[in-house]
């Protein structure tokens, strides 16, 4: 076989092809199959039994006699405006959280990308470093800061700026803060790698032609950084929609987010078919952004292949 036709050598290709079957099977079994099961349960009737739902296939003396499926769980979600409100509220909160992350993350990424190379590395590391410390514990840290008797209120009152503690914990504000705080690195990294690659000659050309710095930014930098903006926003928005920990620890009783409702539906009400239907609808809502994200991800990696 000619060398350049297969630069990695055919025997390795064969070896790898065979070896990759193991993770392939793993993913089929532990990633894909669970989704089919969740869909199956979402079209079953809840019953008082173990497991608490009816079987999809009806078995008779001569094998499968029929299929029992229902759309009742989905109809329930649509009839009950409670779920509609929660889905909308989750999308809204994730969208606002994403926007706030972008408003903070963009200037930070821009700032880092414009530093000398050595300092760039340090500043970038400083963005990533907190990510290595437990997410749960970092969210917990905000409880001590934001509470009525928390560090921030205590400080503001002791210097006399406020006289009554500000309500900053157990409400939507705390959830937005939690989203921005936890997902900031996911916003900054794609933006940074985009802004760092930007052809600075274009900016110099704009400046030479007499463009004011702000105009050069709006007309040149901003349009060129759209792939980074989209990538960062998707990385924040998608997981934020289904977020559980942040609303559970920082949100108030009236903070409606689907992750929390799903948790309660499962652990408290134990209605598995409805919990499954809630998940399937959530997945359908997220499918467009997820496919978009995968498309971006693949384009990035294929470009280097």
């Amino acid at each position: 076989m000619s060398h350049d036709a297969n630069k990695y050598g055919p025997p390795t290709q064969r070896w790898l092809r065979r070896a990759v079957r193991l993770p392939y099977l793993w993913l089929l079994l532990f990633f894909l199959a669970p989704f089919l099961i969740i869909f199956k349960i979402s079209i079953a009737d809840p019953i008082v039994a173990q497991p608490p739902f009816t079987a999809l296939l009806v078995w008779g003396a001569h094998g499968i006699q029929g299929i029992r499926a229902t759309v009742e769980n989905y109809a329930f979600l649509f009839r009950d405006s409670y779920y509609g409100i929660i889905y909308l509220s989750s999308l809204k909160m994730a969208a606002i959280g994403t926007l706030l992350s972008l408003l903070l993350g963009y200037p930070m990424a821009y700032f880092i990308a414009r530093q000398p190379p050595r300092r760039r590395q340090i500043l970038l590391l400083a963005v990533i470093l907190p990510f290595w410390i437990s997410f749960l514990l970092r969210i917990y840290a905000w409880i001590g800061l934001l509470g009525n008797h928390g560090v921030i209120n205590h400080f503001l009152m002791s210097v006399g700026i406020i006289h009554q503690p500000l309500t900053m914990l157990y409400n939507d504000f705390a959830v937005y803060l939690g989203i921005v705080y936890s997902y900031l690195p996911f916003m900054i990294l794609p933006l940074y790698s985009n802004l760092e690659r930007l052809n600075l000659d274009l900016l110099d050309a704009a400046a030479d032609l007499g463009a004011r710095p702000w105009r050069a930014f709006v007309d040149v930098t901003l349009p060129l950084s759209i792939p980074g903006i989209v990538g960062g926003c998707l990385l924040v928005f998608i997981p934020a929609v289904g977020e559980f920990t942040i609303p559970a620890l920082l949100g108030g009783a009236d903070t409606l987010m689907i992750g929390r409702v799903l948790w309660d539906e499962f652990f408290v009400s134990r209605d598995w078919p409805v919990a499954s239907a809630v998940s399937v609808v959530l997945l359908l809502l997220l499918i467009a952004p997820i496919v978009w994200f995968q498309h971006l991800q693949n384009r990035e990696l294929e470009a280097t292949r």
Partner: protein
Amino acid sequence: MTRRRSPLLISIACFGYALLYVPIVSVVIYSFNASRLVTLWGGFSTRWYVSLLADDKLLSAALLSLRIAVVSATLATALGALVALALQRVRRLPGRILLSGMITAPLVMPEIITGLSLLFLFISMASLIGWPLNRGASTITIAHITFSMAYVVVVVRSRLAVLDESLEEAAMDLGGRPVAVFFDITVPMLLPALVSGWLLAFTLSLDDLVISSFVSGPGATTLPMLIFAKVRLGVTPDINAITTIIIALVIIAVTTASLITGRRRATM
């Protein structure tokens, strides 16, 4: 190039970094607070660290979490590296689109759906093939391998993309057997990526609350599950102490890892 120092840009960046670090620093400071109250400074004390040592439930949860994290990170790194190599190197890989879809999806999948769906899988498997009869460490480990694999693949693929393939080609041309070339040349060159992939998988596993809560059974409580149960009721000083210990471990691990990978890069 014009490198302007915009005061607005600098203040936003300072605000951003403050946002990232103030909570962590405040937890570390208050972990040494003698007072039980969050805001009152009652003097320096290590009493919360001492009380941790006496907490058997907490220690066994921490041990369980560590065990799961080591096993799942190791397997996820092995499986993830194979997927990364296959996606990056094998031409006309059968089922390539499905594989790359299944491996990128966990990165953005809401944890709550992953957890719920895996639990349903384990329950169905138990009634079909009789395994797993009891959910616990083993089911949590499987779940963690599945989602952390995706992160390993991202790390290894980006390293493979910039790796010089000429060494491997030379070894092949000299008649090296593919498996030997793989372990003698490819693996050492990938080592920095494998180390960071492993560390990432390890941290993700150690940190996971939602997926573990779903796929765990009675008797298996991981550290995040225990912490969540405590934290739901508000601030507790011993959690501050745990956080500080974890921060110290992370700093040690990250420094060690960067020293190892840094030295390798220097010698290569």
